[in-house]
């Protein structure tokens, strides 16, 4: 066991810090619009090989050798500096790795570079009103007519569909085939007459969700990723990329530090809440969970570095359920510390976790943490996965595959 990163990586970290000290931009560049400043700083990160490391140069990445330790250091340092780093939205985070694995040469050249530059925005068209956890039952249809797919149906809970230029989505193209084998993965332009987007307010009050209606919408025949009927496998590989993203060990810690800070600043009967034995007990108990999450991240990272991921299958399967539970626990404790301020509706909070926020800011955080426990496989689906794949329990009574 050795928790240091070693001299080579520490010098890598030092160089990276020096580079990141250049944000925010200074001199004449400081007067540029923020978007332009961010674009410039991202380009510099790309040239240095800090960003889009896994994407080949010909598709707009920096094509670096795989190195999970550097990945972690980069993520930690960018997060600490607040500088614009790798885009984590659905396009760059989910579609790009999927296209690199399954896409045609033309699709990669057409879509990957502008997605990485943030010039094309994507939304993910998976869930439907009748197909949430049972995603493979989806009914939206695509029929090939000449050189085009013609799409009909409805998607729902689609984040950022109103702002997106394109959708990557799942559509039933082989109605005669068994459930999972009848689905294709299509890339669809959003700005067209056959698509209507209606906003759907989330319980936080934000307007990220949408409903998307397809009424003879169209997309070119070659905008299919993988073959006809392979859409399910293609989308699973997207999820694999998502699951492969191991949380930074420091992320959960900084969330907890925010809670601790809040308990120091909040007063109870004229004294800091942190002096209240009940608060101390509760926070110390939560810290047990937070440290479990932290040390588990370290374990997963080490296993990956040693190529021993087969030894950590169980904690990998648990990562989502566990981390969403712990994040909820932290946010709820903070919301409760805020006391009567918890009666007030949250302001429109842009930051997902507002560590500096008190009162209504933490109310927003509490509400916002309810979402990740549903998105990308709800907690009960995770429990099925842990039970069946992790503990070897039999499949329960569900429709056959």
């Amino acid at each position: 066991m050795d928790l240091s990163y070693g001299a080579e990586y520490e010098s890598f970290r030092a160089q990276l810090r020096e580079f990141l000290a250049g944000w925010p931009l200074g001199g004449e560049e400081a007067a540029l619009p923020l978007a332009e400043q961010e674009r410039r700083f991202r380009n510099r990160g790309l040239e240095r090989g800090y960003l889009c490391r896994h994407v080949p140069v010909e598709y707009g990445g920096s094509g670096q050798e795989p190195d999970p330790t550097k990945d972690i250091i980069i993520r930690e340092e960018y997060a600490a500096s607040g500088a614009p780093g790798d885009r984590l939205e659905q396009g760059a985070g989910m579609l790009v790795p999927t296209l690199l694995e399954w896409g045609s040469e033309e699709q990669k050249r057409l879509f990957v570079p502008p997605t990485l530059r943030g010039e094309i925005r994507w939304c993910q068209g998976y869930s439907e009103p009748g197909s949430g956890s049972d995603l493979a039952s989806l009914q939206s249809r695509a029929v090939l007519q000449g050189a085009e797919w013609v799409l009909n149906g409805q998607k729902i809970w689609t984040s950022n569909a109103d702002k997106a230029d394109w959708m990557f989505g799942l559509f039933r193209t082989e109605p005669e085939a068994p459930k999972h084998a009848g689905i294709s993965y299509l890339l669809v332009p959003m700005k067209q007459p056959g698509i209507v987007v209606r906003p759907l307010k989330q319980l936080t009050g934000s307007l990220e969700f949408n409903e998307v209606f397809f009424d003879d919408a169209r997309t070119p025949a070659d905008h299919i990723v993988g073959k006809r009927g392979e859409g399910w496998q293609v989308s699973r590989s997207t999820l694999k990329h998502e699951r492969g993203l191991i949380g930074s060990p420091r992320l959960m810690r900084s969330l907890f530090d925010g809670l601790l800070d809040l308990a120091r600043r909040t007063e109870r009967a004229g004294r800091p809440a942190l002096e209240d034995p009940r608060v101390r007990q509760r926070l110390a108990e939560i810290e047990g969970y937070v440290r479990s999450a932290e040390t588990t991240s370290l374990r997963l990272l080490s296993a990956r570095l040693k190529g021993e991921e087969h030894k950590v299958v169980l904690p990998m399967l648990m990562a989502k359920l566990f981390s969403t539970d712990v994040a909820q626990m932290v946010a709820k404790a903070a919301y409760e510390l805020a006391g009567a301020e918890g009666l007030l509706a949250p302001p429109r909070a842009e930051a997902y976790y507002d560590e500096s926020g008190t009162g209504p800011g933490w109310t927003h955080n509490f509400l916002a943490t309810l979402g990740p426990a549903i998105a990308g496989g709800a907690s009960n689906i995770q429990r099925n996965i842990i039970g069946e794949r992790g503990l070897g329990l039999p499949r329960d009574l569900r429709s056959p595959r």
Partner: protein
Amino acid sequence: MDFGLSEEQELLQETVRGFVDRECPPSRLRELFDAGSGHDPGLWKGMAEMGLLGLGVPEAWGGAGLEVLDLALVAEVLGRGCVPGPFLGHALACQALVLGGSDAQRERWLPALASGGALGSVALAEDGERWDPEDWTLAPRRGRLHGSKLYGPCADVADLLVIGIRGGGLALVEKGAPGLRREPLNGVDRTRPLARIELAGTPCELLGADPGVAARVRDAGLVVLAADAFGVASRLVQMTVDYARVRQQFGTPLAQFQGVKHQLANMATAIEPTRGLFWYAAHALDHLPAEAPRAAAIAKAHITDRALETARAAVELHGGLGFTWECDVQIWLKRAMFDRAFLGMPERQRERSATLGGW
């Protein structure tokens, strides 16, 4: 960066697991549990032959010269098998001598403790939840002890007792010393029986005056208990999974009901992510001393808490059978109760961790 076990450490765990499966399978464990002695000389001899009794003792004194992490890894496997015996007290007595003994004391005791020639234990607690060095009131007068200590694990069979004294010091008392009386207590965990120690003018020998030694022994104890509880809880998950796969109700195995499956998934998810907690605390004791006391308190509080929850669910999922004496789940449940209470309950450890964190 490597937060994982070495090949040697994995092999150590595998070897001990093989020994436990062979020498202390559930049938043998049940015999020992029902007999209630909690100490099987044959089993102890086998552990001595494997070198487990002097794990943390330097090679110069006949030990294996390993670290607290290795001790914790062995404790995990012993907890997993609910192996009865004096391992906990013996390991802590060794730690005390290694850290605080004079050369003469080490020479006298460590080779014997490491080889199994002598059995050690500790007597730390006093009435009123006085578990920690700063709480101890027993004070030697002219080299003799008058008073009592509580909850010495397997202390009634020990050749050497390491006793906590006022000011956070430690003292040695030998078997047969005048005025020493050991009364077995009716402990809940029959795999690790406890004794009350009465001292009536009993001669003792002080260990070195460094007050950090007792605290470090206590911290090592917290880590060993956390590791034991992790082993206990992981085994309870496995036992319950195995049972739910074969037990049929409503014409189908229990494990096919989502209510049961999700409960099992929750049990596993409460426990598996805590493995790194005791690894980290042990590693801190070995290499990051400033972090160690706090890490040990957090690991002990969190893991023993989760272990008891797991045990409760395990009893429940075994149904009517789970509430019987005959069902083995109770043996592990009671081991978890010991791990939770010994050296102080989670609430106490959490308050300590809060204070240590400057809260």
